[in-house]
């Protein structure tokens, strides 16, 4: 961690930029050799943006998300989060993370899971902290405070995870295939609701998915990654109007966009 803090700060540390990656490279070394998970990723995410990361499995989208969250140190290149090194953003509790399988603590009820971030971190004050009750209403779980995770459906668990990620008032919300394990109807509904959360909180969201439709429906821009080694293939702007409605997925515009994403993915 000390090493990460003392790492050279990127030159263009603009406060209005949520994330900036410059030639970020990540390599993992195992017995079977060295794998390049990410190679020379250049990326700038403006504050308040909604970016989706799309790519085939093994393209390093989760790795990129974990570099932003200071869970993985890049092997090369520089990255800044909120104008500073990721470790600083993490220590300032500016990062929220939603995992693919919710990662709730089974021994805590809904309310205690949501308030976990307020209890840890060495007793540091959280000026941006939000009320758990408000967040539970926001994610549609008011009245479920005392339920345990095993009593909830998969969709409800992800709602709890989202409320937990938002409680410290993060400026950057990282989501790693959060709805990947849900049925399509639940996923659609959560997609719409996530956009409402994004609009009401103003948080920057980086959202990893392997669903073309999800990537196109949610993102202002879709970052397409190619695999082996993971690298930027194309940054596709989404021109659909906001607020987005599920019915928009049937418009010719959306179908054309999805078709384009599919063709690029197939050539990856």
């Amino acid at each position, binding site marked *: 961690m000390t090493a990460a803090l003392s790492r050279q700060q990127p030159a263009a540390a603009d406060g209005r930029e949520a994330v900036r990656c410059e030639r970020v490279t990540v390599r993992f070394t195992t017995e079977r050799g060295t794998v390049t998970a990410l190679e020379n990723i250049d990326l700038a995410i403006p504050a308040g943006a909604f970016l989706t990361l799309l790519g085939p499995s093994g393209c390093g989208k989760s790795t990129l998300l974990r570099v932003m969250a200071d869970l993985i140190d890049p092997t090369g290149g520089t990255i800044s989060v909120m104008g500073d090194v990721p470790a600083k953003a993490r220590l300032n509790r500016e990062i929220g993370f939603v995992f693919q399988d919710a990662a709730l603590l089974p021994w805590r009820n809904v309310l205690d899971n949501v308030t976990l971030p307020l209890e840890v971190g060495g007793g540091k004050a959280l000026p941006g902290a939000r009320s758990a009750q408000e967040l539970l209403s926001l994610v549609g779980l008011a009245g479920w405070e005392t339920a345990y995770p095993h009593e909830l459906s998969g969709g409800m668990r992800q709602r709890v995870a989202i409320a937990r990620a938002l409680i410290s008032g993060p400026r950057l919300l990282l989501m790693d295939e959060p709805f990947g394990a849900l049925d399509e109807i639940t996923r659609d509904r959560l997609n719409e*609701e996530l956009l409402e959360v994004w609009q009401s909180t103003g948080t920057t969201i980086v959202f990893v998915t392997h669903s073309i439709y999800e990537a196109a429906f949610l993102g202002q821009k879709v970052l397409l990654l190619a695999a082996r080694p993971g690298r930027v293939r194309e940054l596709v702007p989404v021109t659909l109007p906001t607020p987005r409605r599920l019915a928009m997925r049937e418009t010719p515009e959306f179908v054309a966009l999805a078709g384009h994403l599919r063709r690029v993915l197939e050539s990856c």
Partner: protein
Amino acid sequence: MANQAEPMTMAGAFVEDAEAQARFLGRKRYLAWRRRLLPVIAVVLFLLAWWQAVEQFDIKPFIAPSPVAVAHVLIDRFDVLMANLLPTAIEAVLGFLLGNFAAISLATAFVWRKTMEEALFPIAVMVNTIPVVAKAPILVLLLGNGMEPKIAIAAIICFFPTLVNMTRGLRDVRPEQLELMRILSATPREVFLRIRVPNALPYLFSALKIAASTAVIGAIVGEWIGSTKGIGALIIQSTYNFDSPLLYATIVVGSTFSALFFGVVTFAEGRMLRWNVTHNA
């Protein structure tokens, strides 16, 4: 996300059918009673068969007593049996507490520093391979003839299963939970208390349930060597006196205590692990 959550119960999916409901509940009650009554019937039949066998084949009391004779001893010499149960119970419970406390502490040290585990775990394995009957005389020589060696044996016998289970429980934490704690900049102490300890509780209780019965066995085996009171001493005495009804009655008392101890631990588990799905199921 202002929309309503998916309902947990399938309200609306149910229709009223009083007759079917009554049939369903009746069947459930029948199954519950069957589960309770069948073991009782089996035990009664076994006792009857035992009693008849002793009567019909004229088996001598010093070879095997009839259940009636055992019941008589249980009632007539209840005070003697209880006076001997008390020291055994104290030894077993103290050994249980001591052994598990030591095991939990060492498991914590193992998880704190892997070096500790690499250095000390082989010793724990070696001690565990010594049979109880061999440990008992060593400890009597070391600790004298009082309650101490019995407590020590009970503690040692509890120690190993708890050490292995607790270490595993503290260590087998889901990686996402650790990633979450890192994103929250949690201190190692917070990770330990909020993730590792609760995660280890189901593992710990599995070990405690084993330890509850083995602690009693440890105390009894300890009493076999140079002891004048306790369940173990009574077993030895009644065997040498060919007093088989007393021997059997002593075993009944010891086993009943073991079962009660196990029941207490199981009850505590149920209270503390309400969140545990596998336990509820």
